[in-house]
């Protein structure tokens, strides 16, 4: 009967069931003799037989009743002769008498009697179709619940979106078993079909939750690691911008380090940190921001394969099933050399069985610039300031006169009412849209899903945008105990920077300048070019940044990426699962930036260089990588009390990247914007670029033992090998160990209404990070490409390799608790951790006689210490109304314990050469300390700033050697508060964030209030609190004291912020009959507002090169 069962599997639809019935009927007809009798009503039977053959008796019954008999002739051959006497009895009674003691059984169905021999019972059992719906406590359907006939060998089927199922049982006596994660398994008799099965939340709901670590699946009740799992539903409720901000809004430990400069630029990758920064940039990276940012980015794992932050930003959110953040050693040690910065595990949706379902989601996203923190002077105030500053006075008459004329020109403009709002020019309201479509379906053995997303993000700077297209197809096939899954993702992205350039180029422009001439044409220079009066004021008139935007310029990139992930899972024997995975990814990014000759950048080119005007930058980046793994997982329960899990994983990766670029110049005509139209390559230019090739291997094992659901231990061990490290240190071990105790399972707490769950856990272990250059451990030679000796080419040693170079290692300690109280009305998670990073990779000095003055060595260490507390309280938890508040509080303290001498010297020399380093890393201080010269304020007698010298004495001279750590950008506490209110089908969700106790260097005070000169526009606070005469006690220098103000503690201010990150309103039309009539299975609408307000104790211009944006969006979500 294999044919039958295989075909039957998963055919939940009643059409299939009907077909099956028909098939079975045909089957019976083929092998039976059909006996037809004329119908007589009311079967009353009278029989008197003596040792009559069964067949003869049957014929008599047929004649008397009109019932049909189905039977195989062969089964009657074994029948015993019948002796009986009955008078006017029912069919049932007659048959009962006939078949007593026979090896033949019968069933009556309507007017048909089916006979079969007892052993062949299965063959001719009439299957029944059982239908039903699985609901949760609140009466909401549960999709994906597992439904099975008890004792049947057929695999379980899953309920569909509406919790409905159809399953074939053998008889009405069969039991239907329904189970779902987090709920108690239920058994129901099949007889009452259609069934309505209400599930009850399992006594220990959290105990059943499975944590996906990307390598092994772990059960939460026995997991000793610190982790957070976020569901797709939460992601939707906490934001609409992208996965990264939504995740941040949910769990503040996933911290986006805000960039005041880049604001809400959609093309900018954010800086992410989990539990502080664990790396320091190397000497040569001190001045490159991007590298520094990359150093602390957590590892991102997408369906078991290493991925990138960019991918996380661009991914189709609708494809995401859940995200797990792994934080401590017990959770991250299985990633060994990559786990230091924490791990983000993204799991995409698996196709669900069922008939074809289409889900459609559409968003309209409106972004508006948030310029509330900008306060600049108006035309008349600005001109007055210039006059007060004495800019229009000169002792020499021949200079003074044109100056005065120039002043009058500007004054005329002001009187004419010129009041240009420059800030409004480059920004607009970006209207973007995002459309998603997802199809899925299939049966138990073969399932499919396909999805596509078009996301068009329009930034608030005009014409800055990012458009991504994502397509994915997932196929899953199950054959016996082997599961195949293949996931193909294709994405294409286009992004463009605004042709208007930097926002800061506009905010500084004077309001008395007109951007357009009388005819409405854009002016190329600002001010009055009709005579040379301006030369006393400006050497050459400032250019109008708006002008460039009118030209054909672009700065854009195009990304294409293909990822294919394939996996096979094979249940080798009971309890032992083998999984093989292979992921391939190919990525290509092309950058094109074009500026025609007319661009203001080329304004000052000499006559001789006229053919060099206009340039085109071309850059191509190619990446190709594979990631394969082989995984064994064994889990076993022995004598109920002992549960053992053991896992082994082997992982192999290779990544190849190349990046090259060149610049062509000489583009006289803006219309010829194709790179080949350039007249030549850049003067003295050559192609440049980088290349890297890395390989890595990892062997991971993990063992978990649980005793009686009370005590559990966890141990992981990983050996990692990478090409990036020294020949003598190619392999490094990483480990972790953890213990835990489920107090709530102890006798004294069992059945306690107050404490529902209390898990205590602790872990220690070592992980690494390896965000370093591909070849820095090797002694490698390069070839002189622009030099030779006679006619021979030569090679040279790049640097002294270090065969002993190894990973930087982070020793992590964590203790934490997961608890639920008051009938699960209060949930609490708390963690305390200490993380110490050793063996930071850094330069070490060598005597020059070694041939090289430095080499790379593992030296230096860094410590992060802190705690994370998260509590959720369900204030109202009724079926129709729920209200909950969640609050998280995080404290992290960072300290540099050791750096190399070479590192200190490199920083010292950078400092003395006046290179503007944003950060200085000094032993004993936080890596986010603010380093400035301590100020004693403005001397009331002179109006000059008084600094504090190293010797403790006041001094008027600013000296880089007096620099001291004044505060830190690390807040003392930060976190969020979110609240969720649900009434029937309406849900509101709001998420606030706060930081407290940090400091910040107020850049606006330094550049726009105490400005070096007032030729460009400044902050409106320019007149406030200025020193004017001896005796004035003020915060700022005199208006006319306009020397550069170097970094001073005067501008370091306490920063406390409070902001509304996100508000989400959602209405689900699930219970609306109207929507059902239209053919929708589900329909919901949502409105979302992101970054609604931002309150800060610091008044500073936010979003300097790119403004911050508020976002409003409207979402429709439909399934049919």
């Amino acid at each position, binding site marked *: 009967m294999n044919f039958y069962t295989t075909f039957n599997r998963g055919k939940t639809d009643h059409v299939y069931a009907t077909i099956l019935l028909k098939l079975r009927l045909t089957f019976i007809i083929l092998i039976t003799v059909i006996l037809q009798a004329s119908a007589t009503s009311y079967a009353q039977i009278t029989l008197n037989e003596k040792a009559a053959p069964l067949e003869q008796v049957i014929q008599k019954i047929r004649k008397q009743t009109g019932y049909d008999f189905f039977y195989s002739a062969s089964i009657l051959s074994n029948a015993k002769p019948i002796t009986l006497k009955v008078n006017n009895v029912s069919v049932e009674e007659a048959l009962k008498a006939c078949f007593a003691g026979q090896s033949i059984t019968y069933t009556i169905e309507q007017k048909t009697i089916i006979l079969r021999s007892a052993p062949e019972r299965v063959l001719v059992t009439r299957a029944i179709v059982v239908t039903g719906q699985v609901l949760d406590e609140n009466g909401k359907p549960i999709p994906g619940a597992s439904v099975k006939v008890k004792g049947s060998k057929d695999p379980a089927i899953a309920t569909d979106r509406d919790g409905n199922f159809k399953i074939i049982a053998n008889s009405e006596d069969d039991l239907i078993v329904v189970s779902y994660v987090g709920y108690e398994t239920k058994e129901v008799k099949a007889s009452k079909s259609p069934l309505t099965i209400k599930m009850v939340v399992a006594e220990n709901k959290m105990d059943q939750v499975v944590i996906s670590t990307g390598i092994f699946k772990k059960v939460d009740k026995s997991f000793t690691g610190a982790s957070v799992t976020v569901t797709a539903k939460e992601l939707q409720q906490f934001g609409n911008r992208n996965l990264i901000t939504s995740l941040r809004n949910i769990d503040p430990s996933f911290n986006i380090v805000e960039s005041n400069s880049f604001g809400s630029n959609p093309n900018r990758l954010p800086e992410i940190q989990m539990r502080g920064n664990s790396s320091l940039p190397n000497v040569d990276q001190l001045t490159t921001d991007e590298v520094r940012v990359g150093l602390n980015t957590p590892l991102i794992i997408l369906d078991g394969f290493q991925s990138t932050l960019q991918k996380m930003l661009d991914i189709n959110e609708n494809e995401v099933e859940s995200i797990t953040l792994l934080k401590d050693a017990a959770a991250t040690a299985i990633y060994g050399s990559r786990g230091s910065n924490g791990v983000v595990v993204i799991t995409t949706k698996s196709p669900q069985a069922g008939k074809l379902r289409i889900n459609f989601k559409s968003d309209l996203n409106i972004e508006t610039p948030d310029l509330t923190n900008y306060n600049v002077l108006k035309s008349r105030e600005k001109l007055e300031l210039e006059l007060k500053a004495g800019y229009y006075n000169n002792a020499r008459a021949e200079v003074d006169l044109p100056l005065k004329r120039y002043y009058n020109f500007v004054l005329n403009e002001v009187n004419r009412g010129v009041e240009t709002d420059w800030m409004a020019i480059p920004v607009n309201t970006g209207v973007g849209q995002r459309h998603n479509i997802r199809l899925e379906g299939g049966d138990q053995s073969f399932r499919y899903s396909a999805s596509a997303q078009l996301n068009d993000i329009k930034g608030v700077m005009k014409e800055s945008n990012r458009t991504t297209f994502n397509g994915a197809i997932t196929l899953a096939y199950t054959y016996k105990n082997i599961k195949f899954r293949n996931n193909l993702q294709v994405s294409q992205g286009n992004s463009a920077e605004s042709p208007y350039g930097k926002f800061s180029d506009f905010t500084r422009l004077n309001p008395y300048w007109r951007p357009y001439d009388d005819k409405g044409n854009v002016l190329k220079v600002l001010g009055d070019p009709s005579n040379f009066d301006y030369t006393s004021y400006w050497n050459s008139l400032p250019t109008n940044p708006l002008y460039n935007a009118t030209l054909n310029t672009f700065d854009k990139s195009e990304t294409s990426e293909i990822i294919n992930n394939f996996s096979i899972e094979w249940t080798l024997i009971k309890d032992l699962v083998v999984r093989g995975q292979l992921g391939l990814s190919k990525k290509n990014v092309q950058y094109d930036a074009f500026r025609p000759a007319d661009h203001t950048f080329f304004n000052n080119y000499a006559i001789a260089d006229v053919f060099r005007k206009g340039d085109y930058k071309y850059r191509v980046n190619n990446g190709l990588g594979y990631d394969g793994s082989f995984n064994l997982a064994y889990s076993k329960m022995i004598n109920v009390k002992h549960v053992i899990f053991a896992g082994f994983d082997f992982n192999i990766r290779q990544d190849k990247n190349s990046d090259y670029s060149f610049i062509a110049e000489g583009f006289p005509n803006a219309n010829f914007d194709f790179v080949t139209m350039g007249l030549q390559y850049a003067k003295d230019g050559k192609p440049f670029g980088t290349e890297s090739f890395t390989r890595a291997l990892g062997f991971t094992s993990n063992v978990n033992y649980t005793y009686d659901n009370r005590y559990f231990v966890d141990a992981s061990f990983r050996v990692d090998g990478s090409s990036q490290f020294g020949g003598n240190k190619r392999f490094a071990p990483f480990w972790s160990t953890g213990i835990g105790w489920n107090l709530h399972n102890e006798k004294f707490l069992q059945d306690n209404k107050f404490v529902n769950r209390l898990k205590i856990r602790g872990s220690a272990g070592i992980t690494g990070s390896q965000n370093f250059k591909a070849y820095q451990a*090797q002694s490698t030679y390069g*070839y002189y490409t622009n030099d030779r000796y006679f006619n021979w080419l*030569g090679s040279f040693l790049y640097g002294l390799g*270090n065969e002993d170079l190894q990973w930087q290692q982070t020793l992590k300690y964590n203790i934490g608790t997961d608890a639920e109280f008051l009938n699960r009305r209060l949930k609490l998670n708390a963690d305390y951790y200490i993380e110490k990073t050793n063996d930071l990779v850094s330069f070490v000095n060598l005597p020059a*006689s070694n*041939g090289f003055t430095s080499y790379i060595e593992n030296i230096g260490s860094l410590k992060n210490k802190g705690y994370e507390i998260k509590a959720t309280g369900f204030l109202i938890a009724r079926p129709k109304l729920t209200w909950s508040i969640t609050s998280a509080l995080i404290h992290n303290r960072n300290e540099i314990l050791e750096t190399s001498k070479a590192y200190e010297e490199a920083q010292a020399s950078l400092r003395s050469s006046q290179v503007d380093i944003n950060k200085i890393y000094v032993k004993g201080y936080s890596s986010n300390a603010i380093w400035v010269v301590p100020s004693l304020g403005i001397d009331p007698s002179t109006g000059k700033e008084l600094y504090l010298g190293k010797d403790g004495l006041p001094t008027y001279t600013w000296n880089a050697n007096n620099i001291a750590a004044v505060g830190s950008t690390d807040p003392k506490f930060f976190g969020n508060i979110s609240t969720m209110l649900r009434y029937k089908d309406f849900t509101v969700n709001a998420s606030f964030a706060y930081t407290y106790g940090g400091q910040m260097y107020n850049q606006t005070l330094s550049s726009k209030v105490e400005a070096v000169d007032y030729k460009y526009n400044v902050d409106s606070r320019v007149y406030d609190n200025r020193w004017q005469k001896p005796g004035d006690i003020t915060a700022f220098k005199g208006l006319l004291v306009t020397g550069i103000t170097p970094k001073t503690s005067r501008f370091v201010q306490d920063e406390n912020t409070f902001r509304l990150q996100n508000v989400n309103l959602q209405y689900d039309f699930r219970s609306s009959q109207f929507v059902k009539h239209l053919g929708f299975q589900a329909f919901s609408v949502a409105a979302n507002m992101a970054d609604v307000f931002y309150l800060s104790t610091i008044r500073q211009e936010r979003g300097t090169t790119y403004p911050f944006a508020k976002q409003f969006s409207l979402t429709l979500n439909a399934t049919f």
Partner: protein
Amino acid sequence: MKKFSLIILTLLFVLPFTSCKKFLEVVPKTEMPQHVLFSTEGGFKDALTGAYIQMKSKSAYGEAMTQTTIEWLVSSWDVTANSTPQRIGLFNFADAGVEDSFSAIFEQEYRIISSVNAILAQIDAKKDVFTTPGMYETIKAEALGIRAYCHLDLLRLFGPIPTAPTNGNMLAYVTTLTNTPTTRIPFEAYKAALLKDLTDAEALLKDIDPITKYTLAELKSPSVTGNFNPTDTYLAFRYLRINYYAIKGLQARAYLWFGDKQKAYENAKLVIDAKNADSSPKFRLGTSADMTTQKDYVLTSEHLFGLYDFDMYNKYVVNYSGSGILKKGTAATTINTSLYGNTGTDIREANMWELLTLSNQAKVYVPKKYLPIEKPSGIGQDFKQIPMIRLSEMYLIVSETAPLAEAQTYWATFRTARNITASILPADPAQQQFEVLKEIRKEFYAEGQAFFAYKRINAPKANFLFAPSAATVNYLLPIPKSELVSN
């Protein structure tokens, strides 16, 4: 089925382990790991060529050790007030700019040494990759020779005055490429190591160096049809690289520095007496015609070892004719009077200098030593060689170290070749040294040898041509800060 699964499992476990180490060795595209480079003969050739390229860098013999820094030290050029060149001329070693100038030389010399040390660390173990006869010996000897050459100059520049070897810096004689800080060793140990490198190099080259068998002209034109037909032209053009005679010349220079007159004499004489197969001298003193007709101002026929610089013409324009950065006076007077003594006949005085007018109308008196033919029509006219060791130095060494009568002969030969009167060498050794010193100053102008000549005999300021009046002559340079590091 079970067995089959077991086999697969075992394979999956074992396979990755077998070749892990190999798998993790990646080959960069723009860089070459050391062991890959040194797996072929070609790699060794490239690495050695790299060392020569480093030798001709501006921080070493391309400029600093021949024409700029080291010559500013002996005030060979006019300087502007309050500039680093002026402070160098005033021996103001504490000045940061001066410190940087010498630090750059120090670092570059040791950089060159590290490059040849990298070769020497591998060459014996990889002897079997050499297929061309003589290539192994040549490369090893050249590497040793370069190591000795650079160490000698480091010692002469930063080390003690050889007559008082304990009074001055100790330096590191570096023979390994390592990231363990090197130690600085006493003068005697340094000397022994240096002489040993020269002896080793000599022994390797003695029998196989083509320069001993073929003329300079033949070495210049290797050909399948000609006399000189090496299997690899990397073995031709020996005068551009450390060769057997360069080693001998270097030995003469080194022994003279260490005060071993006899050995200095023997080695210098060997070079002077070196003959071709047709018994013509291997190297010949230059003539007036070399300069006027051939435009071979740098006198390549005298080069035991000349450093080839393909960019020499452009550098000449940048430093001399185009800018006058390296000029002595705005007229011929200073040079003719103070340096050459107004002989009127001296071929150097007559041919090697010229008065130029710059684009800003400024007049500059500059030497033409480094003016090669910009685009030579053939290799015979390619004079882009920075002189590293010359025959004239050998003549001046024997003039100082040979028995007086013999010294007088060489002195006369040399003076005559320069077309000046063959004066009589004083009998008093000190006076004799000063007499030779004057000739060294003339001969090696802009070649970086004058400072060493003064330092070797601890010449007083009176004998120090062009020393500024404000200067206090100081032959003991401090060790650069980049050498004195602590971690």
